[in-house]
């Protein structure tokens, strides 16, 4: 079945999948089905786990309806031209009983699709946030409020959008093969198993419970984690960020620089303060930070940073094939875990920057 993203060029994946039984078990326990794409991210455990832990399906949401979340993920993946995630969400909608005709109708004309106004507002929000990022956050908040979406639900929609942005970048930049996912609904055995898949999906998706407030979180992004206090999102985000900073593959300084560049590229007003403070603690002078952020280079950077700082900028607005070719070129200069971790950090930075502008600055 032809999809709207068939024309999007997609390069071969430069990474070999790596089996990790512990990771497979972890993902299967949470998602109730195997996730073969995770094997590509296995050399960087926090990254692979974040793709499972931060997925809004598994107990992270308190209020947002899962059908709305699916549709938001579909349009955001379409916006980001991520063939893998787009095919995955399409397959998910189909497995849950939505007809192909209805999926196509939603894709083709979202503005006039037979959906409730609040759902349409959430979809429009997903689109605008993926396109404009922090610059359009205030307008996006107002549009959701006009549609009658409350503050808590708004935060959950923002989280679903931001985490789709993260997942889209992770799968697109690493060029995870999309064909198996695209072919899934056409395969006879999958079609026969559709009712079973539906049952499994319904059992694996559940709304979470309010958590005790006061979850500790270290900067940067501590304000963002605090903005979700009381929601299971706070704990999941906090754990992921802690694991990211603890990972020894890239230096903390290098990761902070990636966050700083993405934040600058998105003209984010929320993140820079904590990130620049973090860089100062790493011994980087304000002048060097300014030079890196203005010209994407500085003599004080080490060879890995000099490669990854300009790369981080390319993850903000990109065409999949172009950035996938860039990753292939970088693969010759960096170790596999280094490059994968850089993709993970840059992808998460893109998601969190958009999220920060929506929830930290909210009145």
């Amino acid at each position, binding site marked *: 079945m032809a999809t709207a993203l068939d*024309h999007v060029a997609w390069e071969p994946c430069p990474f070999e999948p790596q089996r990790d039984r512990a990771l497979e078990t972890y993902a299967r326990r949470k998602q109730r089905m195997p996730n073969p794409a995770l094997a590509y991210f296995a050399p960087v455990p926090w990254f692979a786990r974040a793709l499972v832990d931060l997925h809004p399906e598994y107990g992270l949401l308190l209020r947002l309806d899962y059908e709305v979340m699916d549709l938001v993920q579909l349009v955001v993946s379409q916006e980001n031209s991520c063939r893998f995630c787009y095919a995955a969400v399409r397959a998910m909608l189909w497995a849950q009983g939505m007809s192909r005709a209805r999926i*196509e109708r939603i894709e*083709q004309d979202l503005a006039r699709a037979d959906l409730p106004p609040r759902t349409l507002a959430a979809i429009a929000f997903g689109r605008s946030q993926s396109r404009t990022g922090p610059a359009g956050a205030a307008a996006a908040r107002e549009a959701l409020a006009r549609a009658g979406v409350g503050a808590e639900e708004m935060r959950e929609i923002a989280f679903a959008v931001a985490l789709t942005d993260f997942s889209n970048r992770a799968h697109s930049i690493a060029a995870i093969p999309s064909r198996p996912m695209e072919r899934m609904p056409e395969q006879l055995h999958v079609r026969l198993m559709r009712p079973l898949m539906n049952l499994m999906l319904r059992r694996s998706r559940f709304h979470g419970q309010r958590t005790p407030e006061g979850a500790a979180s270290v900067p940067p992004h501590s304000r963002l984690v605090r903005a979700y206090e009381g929601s299971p999102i706070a704990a999941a985000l906090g754990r992921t960020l802690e694991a990211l900073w603890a990972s020894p593959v890239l230096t903390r300084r290098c990761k902070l620089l990636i966050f700083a560049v993405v934040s600058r*590229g998105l003209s984010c007003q929320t993140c820079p303060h904590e990130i620049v403070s973090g860089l100062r603690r790493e011994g980087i002078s304000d002048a060097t930070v300014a030079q890196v952020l203005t010209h994407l280079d500085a003599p004080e950077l080490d060879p890995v940073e000099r490669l990854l700082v300009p790369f981080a900028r390319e993850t903000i*607005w990109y065409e999949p094939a172009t950035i996938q070719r860039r990753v292939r070129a970088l693969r010759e200069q960096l170790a596999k875990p280094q490059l994968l971790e850089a993709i993970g950090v840059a992808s998460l930075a893109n998601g969190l920057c958009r999220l920060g502008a929506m929830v930290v600055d909210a009145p």
Partner: protein
Amino acid sequence: MIRGALVGAALIVLAALAGALYQQWRRAAGLRLQLDAATLELQQLQVACSRLAPAGVVQRLVADGTTPSAEATAERKVATALFADLVGYTAMSERLEPAVLARVLNGYFQRMSDAIHQHRGHVSTFLGDGILAYFGAIQPNPWQCDDAVRAALAMRAALEAYNVELTAEGLPALALGVGIHRGPGLAGLIGARERMEYGFVGSTVNLAARVQGLTRVHQVDILVTEALRAELDPHFVLTPMPPETVKGIVEAVVTYAVKG
């Protein structure tokens, strides 16, 4: 006997109905395929349009189904304008056959567009032998000045390589003049009802064109303004040029030649 005939007739009617239904089903399937193909084409067109104008503008056009007013799509932005022109084009156009000239120009435009696109620029229009490109007009780009100068250097390198090909064919080598300036302007859909394009207008573009004209005066190929130099990576090698007055601007314009 009669029963047999009736059963036979009923079977014939059923077969005829089944045949008609099958025909209808096939026709509907064919129409559905055509509709799918047309929808897909439209979606691809929308994506292609998104590369020529900000996605929000394209979405508004599609949603409205009409041409929006300039006020609805225009916004104030700070962007970088790059204006490039071929030196000696008029003389060359008189010497070459039209078909050869068209081939040479197409090769030139393709190479220059690739260099601009690779550095996140957007070619707005081709004006005769001139090229007008913007950086940071469609998507926010805090690195637009460095990008524009890198694009100009890539254009220089691409033209050198192209000249080797042209000379080997016995054709004249091309020379380039590039002017770059950064400043505020109005970005949006500009034009008449019948033909609109996403553009960036204002004195910034005019000054980039004037600075491009100064490349002939200073006998250099890439010139940038003081406003652009102030934002530029100090690693670029620049040479200050004597201030020159240009049409439409009261004060003399200070420019810098880009060496590398």
